[in-house]
């Protein structure tokens, strides 16, 4: 039998699928639903220091080749979120599905503070979303945009918690391997790659961008080749495990991501294309595909496309 279970740091995953942050990770009940739908691990929606309502509608659309969203990091603030995550961890533990808590903040210090607070919920991993703009930078350059800022956030978060951390990188950088090396040197235990690619969808008849926020993040099928390349570059540059994320919609996509060097596979937009129950579907497609192709474990496939 094909064995889909895999180790990720000190965690045991039933299968390599991971619910990506920002998709259905807003409450204990939704995290539990996704866990029951077959995810190997689940990530909560990114939470920052203060409550945020997010952007007005439209916040998301399917433009044909993928999705674009600008939800605007809606979150209840880290105090309330920590209570939600405590409840979530309790619901997930009996299911054997690890909880990954995603955090963001507008400054290095605030990142440390949020990490310290969220640790009280005892998530299995903290995901550090550094794609948010650095409010201290005159251009609002995302922390993920430069090795220095990415490393600074990583080091600060690492010092603030004993829970392992995965740093989530952005695809819109000239050399992602360089950012990966910087965060690993600063203490990242793992890397999540990638976040959405900034984009804009314009409606010609309206003469306007469709999202209320004008710009948004591209995800789904259009992101897949970008994400595969990022993961391949990172896997060649560093040794930490990678949650490969971007455009994974089928079991075959998941196989490609693992071949690019990922240890686990993040899944977000596929919940739109195939519904929230997509995890079970991807997992069984992956198992069938591996069986037919003669692979007996995830480890056997990992990174073979970049050797």
């Amino acid at each position, binding site marked *: 039998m094909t064995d889909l279970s895999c180790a990720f740091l000190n965690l045991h995953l039933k299968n390599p699928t991971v619910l990506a942050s*920002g*998709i*259905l*990770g*807003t*409450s204990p*009940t*939704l995290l*539990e*639903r996704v866990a029951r739908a077959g995810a190997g691990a689940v990530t909560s*929606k990114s939470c920052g220091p203060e409550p945020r309502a*997010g952007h*007005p*509608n*439209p*916040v*998301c*659309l*399917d433009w044909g080749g993928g*999705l674009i*969203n600008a*939800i605007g990091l*809606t979150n209840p603030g880290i105090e309330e979120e920590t209570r939600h995550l405590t409840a979530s961890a309790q619901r997930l533990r009996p299911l054997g599905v690890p909880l990954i808590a995603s955090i963001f903040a507008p400054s290095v210090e605030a990142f440390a503070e949020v990490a310290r607070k969220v640790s009280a919920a005892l998530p299995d991993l903290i995901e550090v979303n550094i794609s948010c703009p650095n409010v201290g930078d005159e251009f609002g350059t995302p922390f993920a945009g430069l090795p220095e800022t990415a490393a600074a956030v990583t080091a600060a978060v690492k010092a603030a918690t004993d829970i392992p951390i995965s740093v989530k990188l952005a695809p819109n950088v000239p050399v992602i391997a360089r950012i990966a090396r910087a965060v690993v040197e600063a203490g990242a235990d793992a890397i999540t790659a990638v976040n959405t690619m900034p984009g804009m969808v314009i*409606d010609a*008849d*309206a*003469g*306007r961008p*469709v999202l*209320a926020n004008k710009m948004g993040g591209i995800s789904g099928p259009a992101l897949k080749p970008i994400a595969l390349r990022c993961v391949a570059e990172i896997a060649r540059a560093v040794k930490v495990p990678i949650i490969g994320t971007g455009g994974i919609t089928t079991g075959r996509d998941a196989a490609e991501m693992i071949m690019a060097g990922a240890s686990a596979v993040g899944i*977000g*937009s596929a*919940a*739109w294309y195939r*519904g*929230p129950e997509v995890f079970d579907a991807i997992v069984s497609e992956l198992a069938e595909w591996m069986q037919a192709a003669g692979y007996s474990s995830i480890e056997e496939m990992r990174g073979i496309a970049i050797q």
Partner: protein
Amino acid sequence: MENERARSLVFDRPLTHAQPGQYLMAWLPEVGEKPFSIAGSDPLKITVVAVGPVSQALCQLKIGERVWVRGPLGSGYQPGGRRHLLVGGGYGAAPLFYLAQTLLARGEEVQVCLGARGQADLMLVSAFESAGCRTRITTDDGSAGEKGLVTQAVQAAIETFSPDTVYACGPVPMLVAVARLCEEKSINCQLSWEALIRCGMGLCGSCELDPEICQQTGVPQGWLTCKDGPVFQKNNQNSLS
């Protein structure tokens, strides 16, 4: 004009495969995007109550002006049996009228209970009546029909009409009350929920039905109004659980 604050927008093209109970997202650039129940599919129709920025802007459109829509979204009503009781509060009358038309076209029996704060908020009463539905009205202030909550009328209709299925669309407390009534009487019901719909795609989690309400009404935990709903089907007959 359906009443003083409501208006039906009829589009210049159909939205094929749209079922009663499904919704669409209507966008007006610079104004916003909100969900509206489909009130007719060929031609596409929505009925809008002017309460805030998007709904007011929609009600002020002139004929020929453009509305951007994406849909149909969500899951609609799945008619069951041959005797149908429709229960509407507020704009809920709009999708129910579309449902009534569909059911009447099949030659089945339809009764309707409509509730509102006052006469000015009542919608589509004469439309239901001239379509041939027995219609019961309640208003909070007694300015039309019986004074009181629509659930009183529902209770009466259940006794006299003994419906196979109850279909409801309206404010959450009304739906909770209808759910409870139907459970007591072992009648299947289909409830169309309202929630803050943002993505409308089952991604952002914004429209999750409150876990408390889920518990009270038998909706599964983690239920997404935009994708699993807006209609929830509750089987109170022949239930195996």
